[in-house]
C-alpha cells in the first residue's frame, strides 16, 4: 500500500522525458560500492490489515486503570471541540508559515496562543516553539545564562525530575553549573539554603528555578524566592502547571522573569509522553533571549490587519551559530490544541477545572489518611501530594494488580532520599470520581494489612 499516484505509464513518460529507460539512472551518483540494494523490512500491509495490527498493539496497553498518577502529565477532560479542529487538514498538513499571505490561519492561532499564555502567566512574550516542559525549562535556564553572562543556575530539587535531568544534559554542552537546592520537611524549597547559595561572591548565579506547584504538589513561597534572586542579580524562573494558573497567583505578579512548564494539561492527550508543548513566557525586555518563533500583528500593503513571523534575527536559519537556540520547530499543532481548549473552557471553565481538581484532591487526602496513608508534607498543596505508606513500591505493585495506578513511587525519582522511600505521589483532577477514591482507599487498606 502506497500513496503515490504514478502508473507504470506515468513513470515511463517521466523517465522518457529525461532520456532514461530505468530509474537506476537517477541513482548513479551514489558510488557503486556504497549503493544499498533494498530494505530488509516487513512486507507492506493493506489498510485493513494495518488497522487490525495497530488495534492489537494498542490493546496491549492498559490506559484504563483507575489512575492517581500525575507527576507532570495530567488526565483532563478534553472538550470535543479540540479534536474537531486538530483534525482539520488545513491546520495539520500545513507547515511553518513562511508565506504569510496563505498562512493566516496558523499565524493568527499562534498569536492567539501567545496572548492566552501571556494572560495566564502575567508575562509578555510567549514562544510556541518548545517541545515539552523539560526542554522549555532547559531553554529558560540557558536564557538566564545569556542574559546575565553568568554560568551558574540554582534549581530546587522539587522541580520536576525530568526537567532538572534535561537541563543538566543541555548544560553539559556549555559546561555550565546546575546546583540543586534542598527542601524543608514541609515540602517547600529551603530558602535559607537559597540565600546562602546566592551569597557566594565567587560563584554568581544567573537564574533560580522553583516549581509552582512543585513536584511534590506543594505551593512554594515564590514571591520571597523571586526577591532573593533579584537581590543577587539573578533572574527568577517559575516552573508552572498551566491549569493551576487559573486559581494561583500569576508568575508575572510574584516577580518571575520567565515562566515555563508543561502545556499538556491544556487539551493534549497523554500519548505516553508526547508530542507535548513546552510553555515559555518572559518579560518583554527579555525578548531577544527568547528562543523560537514569534508571531506579531501588523498590517498588509492595503492596510488590513495581518499576522507574521517576526523578530526572526534571533533564529537559526538567519543567525546560524549565533542564534538564541537551534530550535526550528514551532510546536504549532500542540499550541493550537491549547488555544482551542482554553477558548472552549473560557476563564470560568478553566477555573472550574482547577477548583474541582483541588476539591477532589482534598477528598482523596481525607480518604487516604483514613486508610492509614497520611500526607508527608505539611505545606499547602493544590491537587497533588505525597502520602506515606509502608514499602511504597510493593504497595504500588499490589494495587496495580487490582487495576489501580497508585501514583508514582517517589523512590523512583529520589532513590537516594530515605525520607521518600515510603512515599507515593498521588493526584486528582476533575475526572477523578468519588468512586475512584473509595476504591483506592479500600484497596489500600486491604494490601497494606
Amino acid at each position, binding site marked *: 500500500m502506497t500513496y503515490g499516484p504514478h502508473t507504470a505509464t506515468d513513470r515511463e513518460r517521466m523517465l522518457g522525458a529525461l532520456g532514461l529507460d530505468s530509474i537506476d539512472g537517477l541513482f548513479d551518483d551514489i558510488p557503486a560500492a556504497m549503493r544499498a540494494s533494498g530494505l530488509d523490512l516487513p512486507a507492506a500491509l493493506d489498510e485493513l490489515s494495518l488497522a487490525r495490527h495497530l488495534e492489537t498493539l494498542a490493546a496491549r496497553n492498559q490506559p484504563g486503570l483507575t489512575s492517581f498518577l500525575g507527576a507532570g502529565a495530567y488526565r483532563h477532560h478534553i472538550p470535543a471541540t479540540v479534536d474537531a479542529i486538530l483534525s482539520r487538514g488545513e491546520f495539520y498538513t500545513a507547515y511553518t508559515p513562511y508565506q504569510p499571505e496563505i498562512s493566516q490561519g496558523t499565524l493568527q492561532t499562534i498569536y492567539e496562543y501567545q496572548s492566552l499564555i501571556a494572560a495566564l502567566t502575567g508575562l509578555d512574550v510567549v514562544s510556541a516553539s518548545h517541545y515539552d516542559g523539560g526542554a522549555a525549562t532547559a531553554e529558560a535556564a540557558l536564557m538566564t545564562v545569556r542574559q546575565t553572562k553568568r554560568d551558574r543556575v540554582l534549581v530546587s530539587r522539587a522541580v520536576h525530575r525530568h526537567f532538572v535531568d534535561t537541563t543538566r544534559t543541555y548544560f553539559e554542552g556549555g559546561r555550565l553549573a546546575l546546583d540543586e537546592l534542598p527542601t524543608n520537611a514541609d515540602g517547600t524549597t529551603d530558602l535559607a539554603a537559597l540565600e546562602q547559595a546566592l551569597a557566594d561572591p565567587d560563584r554568581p548565579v544567573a537564574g533560580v528555578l522553583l516549581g509552582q506547584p512543585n513536584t511534590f504538589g506543594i505551593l512554594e513561597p515564590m514571591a520571597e524566592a523571586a526577591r532573593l534572586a533579584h537581590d543577587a542579580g539573578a533572574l527568577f524562573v517559575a516552573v508552572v502547571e498551566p491549569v493551576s494558573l487559573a486559581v494561583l497567583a500569576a508568575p508575572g505578579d510574584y516577580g518571575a522573569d520567565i515562566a515555563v512548564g508543561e502545556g499538556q494539561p491544556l487539551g493534549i492527550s497523554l500519548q505516553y509522553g508526547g508530542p507535548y508543548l513546552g510553555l515559555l513566557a518572559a518579560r518583554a525586555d527579555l525578548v531577544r533571549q527568547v528562543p523560537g518563533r514569534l508571531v506579531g500583528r501588523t498590517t498588509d500593503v492595503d492596510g488590513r490587519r495581518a499576522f507574521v513571523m517576526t*523578530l526572526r534575527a534571533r533564529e537559526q536559519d538567519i543567525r546560524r551559530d549565533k542564534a538564541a537556540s537551534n530550535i526550528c520547530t514551532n510546536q504549532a499543532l500542540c499550541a493550537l490544541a491549547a488555544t482551542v481548549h482554553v477558548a472552549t473552557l473560557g476563564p470560568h471553565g478553566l477555573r472550574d477545572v482547577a*477548583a474541582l481538581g483541588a476539591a477532589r484532591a482534598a477528598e482523596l487526602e481525607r480518604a487516604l489518611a483514613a486508610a492509614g496513608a497520611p500526607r508527608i508534607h505539611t505545606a499547602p498543596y493544590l491537587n497533588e501530594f505525597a502520602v506515606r505508606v509502608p514499602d511504597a513500591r510493593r504497595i504500588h505493585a499490589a494495587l496495580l494488580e487490582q487495576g489501580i495506578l497508585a501514583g508514582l513511587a517517589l523512590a523512583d525519582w529520589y532513590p537516594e532520599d530515605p525520607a521518600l522511600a515510603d512515599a507515593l505521589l498521588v493526584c486528582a483532577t476533575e475526572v477523578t470520581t468519588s468512586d475512584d477514591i473509595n476504591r483506592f482507599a479500600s484497596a489500600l487498606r486491604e494490601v497494606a494489612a
Partner: protein
Amino acid sequence: MTTTLERPEQSPAAELGPSRVVGPGLQPTLDELSRPGRGTTTVPHPVADALERIPQSQRRAGPLGLPELNEPEVIRHFVNLSQLNYSVDTGFYPLGSCTMKYNPKINEWAARLPGFAALHPLAPDAAAQGTLELLWELEQWLIAISGMKAVTLQPAAGAHGELTGILMVRAYHAARGDHERTEVIVPDSSHGTNPATASMAGFKTVTVKSDAEGQIDLEALNDALGPRTAAVMLTNPSTLGLFERRIEQVIAAVHGAGALAYMDGANMNAILGKFRPGAAGFDVMHFNTHKTFSTPHGGGGPGAGPVAVNEALVPFLPWPRVLRETNAFRLEQRGERPSSIGRVRSYQGSAGVLVRAYAYMLAHGGEGLEQVSEDAVLAANYLRHRLADTYEMPFAQVSKHEFVASAQRLRAETGVRMLDVAKRLIDKGFHPPTIYFPLTVEECMLVEPTETESVETLDAFADALIEIVHEAHTDPALVKSAPHDSPVRRLDEATAARQPDLRWRAMTGRETPCPD
C-alpha cells in the same frame, strides 16, 4: 451545602490593542469575539470552598483576562481560520527542504486509538507493552534503513536530534580523554540548525565552502580538519538536492583526523534502500519523521527526530532506552547506564508522532519505501527538466528529491525577483517553493515535489512557473505586486519587527521590547 463559585471575571475591552481593519474574509481575534457571560459548560461546577485551604497570598488576585465564547463561536472561529491556510490537503506544496508529502489518514486514526492516546508516560512497563513493542520495532526498522547499530526515538524534532547526536559526540571524545576537540565543521550550504546545534553543544563552528558543482570542497575540508575537530556535520543528499559523490573520501578524511562523521538525515526520503549511512561509515545521524515518514507538519510542529548511532556511540545514548527482555519490553531505569548523556526531554519520546511513522512504514514495507524514494527523485528530476529552459539550473549533476533553480537572469532582464515569482505562484493556486535558501545560490528557489503528486500536478506547476516568466517580460508590475487574490498581501514586516505586537493586550513589561 454546595453553591457554585463566584464569577468575578470580565473581559476588559478597554485594554484592546490598536484597532486595525479586519479585511473581508479575515477573522476577528478570540478577544474581539469575547462577550462577558458567554461560555460552554464542560465540567461540573466545584463546591464553593474548594480553594479555601489555599492561602490568599498564593491565589490569583485579578481576573484571568481570557476570552468568553460559546462552543459554536469557537468552532466557527477556528474553521474560518483554517480556511486561510494553504495545506497539503488542499493543494501542491513544493516547499524545498521540508518534504510536504501527503499525510495518510489511517495514521491519524491510529494515533487516536485510546490504547495509544490515553496512556500515561509514567505508566508501569506492564501497562505499556503495546507501545513499547511498537517503539522497539520502529527502532529495528530505522537500524535497518540507516545501517547503524542502535537508535534512540526520544528527540522531539530534527534539531533536537542534532543536539542529542552532537552531545553524544562530545561525550565520546571526553570518555577517551580527548578534550582538545572544540570545533564542528559544517558546509556553507548546511541547514542553519547545524551551526546553531554546534554552538548549543559548546562547540565553535567552522564553515567550509562548497565547490562550483555544489559538492563539499575536499581540499577546503582537509584544511579545516585537525586535532581540534570533534565532528563534521554533513547533510546528504545536501540542501542543494545533490548526493555527495565523494562521500567515501570525505568520511575517510574525517576519520583520519580522529573526528566523527555526523549525517544530517533530513533528506533520507531521497535514498531509502539506496544508501545506508552507517554502512558507508557515518557514525551518527538523525531522521526527521515529518519528512521521511510523513508525520504531519502541523503548521510547524510537532515533529520527531530519531537518532541512529554506530557501535562507538551506543554507550552514550540518552536514557531511557527501550529494552527487550525474554517475554516483555521495559524502559531503562534511572542510573542503569551511567555513560549515558542523560535525558534530553521529559518522559521517553513523542510516541504520538512515532505511531504515525510506524504506520507509514508498515503500510509501505521495504519495497514500498524504496519506491517512495524513487518516485520522489523522479518527480524532482522531471520538474527540473520541465523548467530547465526557463530558469537557471546551477548544478549539472542529477538531482535527488529536490533541486535548486535560480532567477538571476530574469532579475537582470526584468527586475522581477524570485520573491515576486513566489508571490505570483500564490495567485496561480500553488504554495511557493522555499526561496533564498540555500544561501549559496543567488535568487534561488528550492523545489521539492515529493512522491505523492501526480504528473498532471507537476505539469501544471511547471506551466505556471513558465507563464510567470512571460508575464515578467510583458507586465512586470503584475508580478511585482502579486499576490492579488490572497486574503492579505505583502505584509509590513519592518513595522512588525520595530514595534512588536505579540499579544492582544497592551504589553505590561518594564520596558518596551525592542529599543532598536
